[in-house]
């Protein structure tokens, strides 16, 4: 029983990472109506920039804020330069652009900062939380920040006019234009926000998984899986999905006999596929009902 609880808590801690990533995935999905496969790489790049600023002597929180702002601008720039020319092309042509972006960033990271593993500081420290062995302060900090960001996003999309305009622009660009929304800028804004959130996620994850160019790959996988599990249209669902994936992965590794350790990822994915069979739009996702 103690082991189960421990593994669940450990899973939650990992899950916080995946939840943050899943949130960024859903966020951009809401903003541009498809997935950003280069999300992880953008986050890694931002984290490297942060590392560089810290290496140059900037205090942590100043570097943090600076990187978030730079990422925001960077996200907008990427959309305007890379994706605007392709917005009339098929979605699969845009997919190629995503893959290209992934490739460029990943390779660029390695070239500029090389492949040695680097440590990244955490503002929360790593003392056990309230003396408990189950979770430490950094993990608690991650969970906390993820929840705060989630609330902010939820509030933004549901409660503000700009958020509504962004959702509308993503779902039905033509109708959005008819009501006067500048769709191009909405998309760019969505990218900026996603890049900023990704940067926050990257800077929180790096202390745990250590900074190197492929840092985000596994995380993005699990984040993507968590977002799909929770439902791509639901930020709250994404967070829950991310936590769930963390727990499933850990439990599979510990409790499934003989194969658990090697096939953690496979098992996690099987579970998700099984869930999708029952709820094809994810647990909290809404199936779009539209008239023929």
């Amino acid at each position: 029983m103690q082991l189960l609880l421990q593994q669940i808590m450990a899973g939650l801690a990992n899950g916080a990472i995946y939840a943050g990533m899943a949130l960024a995935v859903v966020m951009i999905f809401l903003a541009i109506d498809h997935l950003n496969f280069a999300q992880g790489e953008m986050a890694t790049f931002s984290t490297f920039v942060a590392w560089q600023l810290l290496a140059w002597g900037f205090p942590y929180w100043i570097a943090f804020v600076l990187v978030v702002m730079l990422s925001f601008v960077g996200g907008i720039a990427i959309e305007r330069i890379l994706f605007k020319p392709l917005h009339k092309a098929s979605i699969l042509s845009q997919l190629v652009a995503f893959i290209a972006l992934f490739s460029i960033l990943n390779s660029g990271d390695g070239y500029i900062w090389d492949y040695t593993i680097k440590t990244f500081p955490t503002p929360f420290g790593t003392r056990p939380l309230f003396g408990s062995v189950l979770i430490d302060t950094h993990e608690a900090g991650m969970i906390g920040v993820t929840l705060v960001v989630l609330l902010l996003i939820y509030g933004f999309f549901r409660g503000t006019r700009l958020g509504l305009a962004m959702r509308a622009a993503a779902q039905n660009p033509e109708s959005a234009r008819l009501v006067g929304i500048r769709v191009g800028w909405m998309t760019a804004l969505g990218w900026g926000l996603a890049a900023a959130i990704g940067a926050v996620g990257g800077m929180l994850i790096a202390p745990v998984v250590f900074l190197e160019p492929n840092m985000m790959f596994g995380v993005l996988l699990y984040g993507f899986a968590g977002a799909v599990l929770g439902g791509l249209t639901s930020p709250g669902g994404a967070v829950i999905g991310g936590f769930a994936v963390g727990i499933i992965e850990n439990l599979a590794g510990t409790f499934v006999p003989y194969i658990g350790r090697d096939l953690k990822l496979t098992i996690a994915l099987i579970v998700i596929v099984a869930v999708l069979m029952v709820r094809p739009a994810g647990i909290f996702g809404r199936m779009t009902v539209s008239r023929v």
Partner: protein
Amino acid sequence: MMLTVDGVNAYYGEQQALFGISFGIDEGGVRTLLGANGAGKTTVLRALCGMVRTSGEIRFDGKAIAGWATENVARLGVAHVPDGRGTFVRLTVEENLQLGAMTRRDRAAIAADIERIYGHFPRLKERRRQQAGTLSGGEQQMLAVGRALMLRPRLLLLDEPSFGLAPLIVEELFQILRQINRDTGVAMLIVEQNAALALELAEHAYLLETGRIVMDGAAAEIGADEGVRRAYLGY
């Protein structure tokens, strides 16, 4: 004239769809564009909103708007209810209406307008928090018109508002349109296949055939014309 269109051609890629279209609408006027399928009626509305490639002159309030981006034409006060309604199916009824007022800043007036729209279309009020995609065809049409009105437009473009609707609902809708025109003085250009209904509502009518305006006159006279009666009114 508030809107003047002069010698406009429209193209879908290499294919020319409109040939030398010329007409106008004055403040508060209600005009209708009739014609069979494929005549180019929808294309005329799209040309006004910059949704197709055009040549020729289009002036709104004296401003030349041919080639303007759709969102900028909308910001001038031209509200377009497209064919297929263009509802935001994943958003709620209320969110759809709020989107109509996206370019306005007067919060209190927006809220008041939403109530007024519910006044015209009580069925929408019942469903205000429902996903718009779950509404029936008639309700979605009302929602689309309501959203367009939230813009407080000077010109309302309606593309086949009667399409796919039961006759009773259509009559209701057209009565509401007449009332809105009388109360707020918004000009309307209605594209319709249902010639009888459109000619009742409008003062002036145009007949479009294969991309050209072939008749242009007062609604009553066009309605009385024998050829039109036989081809478009069924008697």
